[in-house]
């Protein structure tokens, strides 16, 4: 039987998780299912936009199936959706109950501080992973059906990359909440980092002098390797997972060492 706190966390987050899951699923299916119909429009879009803008949006070319998938699901809106889901759900692990006062009764359960933080994170981490895995699972069905000519192993690499990216930011969001106990800090810190990381990756592709910044950006490790064309890049994925794990552990450590609810 799963720990009571894990089940309770899932029950409290049920609606939010369901909402995000439906949103991400709808977004993925709608964009990919209408691949053929979008083709014509995509060409127009590509001609209408200057190359620099396309680079910034992470759109290499929209004609090839891989380019189309990258442009629609994996470049901007897809990561944005799942990251927003991850950050808001993670803000609920510690910061939200601490701010609204529900923490007192949660923390009065017979668990050590570290076990408490660990179980909250485990519960939310699972929920976030489920949401982040939705594009991967749906693409496995949709890509062959609409006749996109991309190896499924490459789709898997990109989909898993999205999960790894989400883990990375979940860890960061958890650390921010565990240290500050404030939702606004979680949203601000993680949101700013996510935007900065996205910009760093985008800018480094546009100007040669800034090439090195990409190494600082989680987005580079997720999509800069171009998994839809080149397949798996385990080292890059492991870096994302490692950052997520390290920040999560730091969060558990920090939460064990501070006053709660002051």
């Amino acid at each position, binding site marked *: 039987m799963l720990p009571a706190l894990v089940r*309770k966390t899932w029950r409290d987050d049920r609606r939010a998780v369901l909402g995000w899951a439906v949103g991400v699923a709808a977004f993925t299916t709608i964009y990919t299912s209408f691949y053929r119909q979008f083709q014509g429009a995509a060409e127009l879009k590509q001609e209408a936009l200057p190359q620099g803008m396309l680079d910034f949006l992470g759109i290499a070319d929209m004609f090839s199936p891989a380019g189309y998938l990258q442009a629609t699901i994996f470049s901007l809106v897809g990561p944005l959706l799942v990251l927003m889901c991850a950050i808001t759900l993670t803000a609920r692990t510690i910061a939200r109950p601490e701010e609204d*006062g529900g923490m*007192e009764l949660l923390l009065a*359960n*017979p*668990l050590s*501080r570290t076990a408490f933080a660990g179980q909250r994170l485990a519960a939310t981490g699972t929920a976030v992973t489920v949401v982040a895995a939705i594009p991967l699972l749906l693409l496995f069905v949709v890509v062959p059906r609409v006749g996109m000519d991309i190896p499924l192993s490459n789709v898997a690499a990109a989909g898993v990359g999205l999960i790894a990216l989400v883990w990375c930011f979940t860890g960061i969001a958890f650390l921010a909440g565990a240290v500050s106990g404030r939702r606004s800090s979680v949203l601000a810190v993680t949101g700013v980092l996510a935007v900065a990381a996205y910009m760093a990756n985008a800018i480094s592709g546009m100007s040669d002098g800034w090439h090195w910044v990409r190494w600082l950006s989680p987005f580079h490790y997720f999509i800069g390797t171009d998994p839809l064309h080149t397949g798996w890049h385990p080292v890059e994925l492991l870096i994302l997972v490692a950052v997520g794990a390290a920040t999560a552990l730091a969060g558990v450590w920090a939460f064990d060492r501070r006053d709660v609810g002051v």
Partner: protein
Amino acid sequence: MTSDYAVLTEDLTKFYGQRRGIESLTLQVGAGEVLGFLGPNGAGKTTTIRLLLDFLRPTDGSATVLGLDPRRDKAALHRQIGYLPGELSFPGRETAGDLLRFFGAARGGVAWSQVTGLAERLDLDLSRPVRTMSKGNKQKVGLVQAFMHRPALLILDEPTSGLDPLMQQEFLAMVRDARDAGQTVFMSSHVLAEVQHTADRVAIIRDGRLVAVERVESLGKRAIRSVEIHFNDPVDPAEFDVLPGVSEVTVSGPVLRCTVSGRLDPLIKVAARHEIVDMLSAEPDLEETFLSFYYHSEGAGDASRAGA
């Protein structure tokens, strides 16, 4: 040795940055005892309680609860503690019943009959979502979750806040039952009347410092009472003025009025030299004595300023 005490604090101190929460609080609560923890707003009651539960970490000093270290042994300790927060806020949106099932499961399983028994006693509807409940009914949910696993130690922060008088009586009966079952109760309150009849001892805290820890009866011994003695013949006030604890002596003919703090003995001994017709003594006003602690750390003697 320490395990004879349910709660033991030594020089417990908590500063919030520069702001004082409590300072050098040394307090013992015996196992099986009911302690009323009294003090005005901002005195440090909640701070003390949250230190005992390891939500806050002391700036200095230490606390031992049920012989355990609040931080190191948190898991084992919290299994034996029933806690009612002073500012109740419930996690989630489920019904009272579902929420209590969670608390039960988290504490390793609690007989459901225990929960329904308490709910019945407090006249609480378990099928309603806690969020939609009135303040008093939320308080009842808080009380049920604190008592439901029959913890060795109950730590209750302003347990009666929001309860109507009938439910306050029921709550006090629950505390007495808990004591009879050998449980220790540490409850904070603002008013003496609330704990007077249930608590074995009261601890009074003011401005972060403990100003008195006394048995409820001895608080009565320090109480102020007004006394009126009717003699057969006129008496000389000077005879009574000098007595220890006697003050505000006024004599009109054969009638003497005065206030006495502490024991009546010296006054009676002197009065007995005369022929007494009648004697009136008001019940000692504990509340007044107690209020004096709120304003003057010395307590008895200055009650007139605090009283009406």
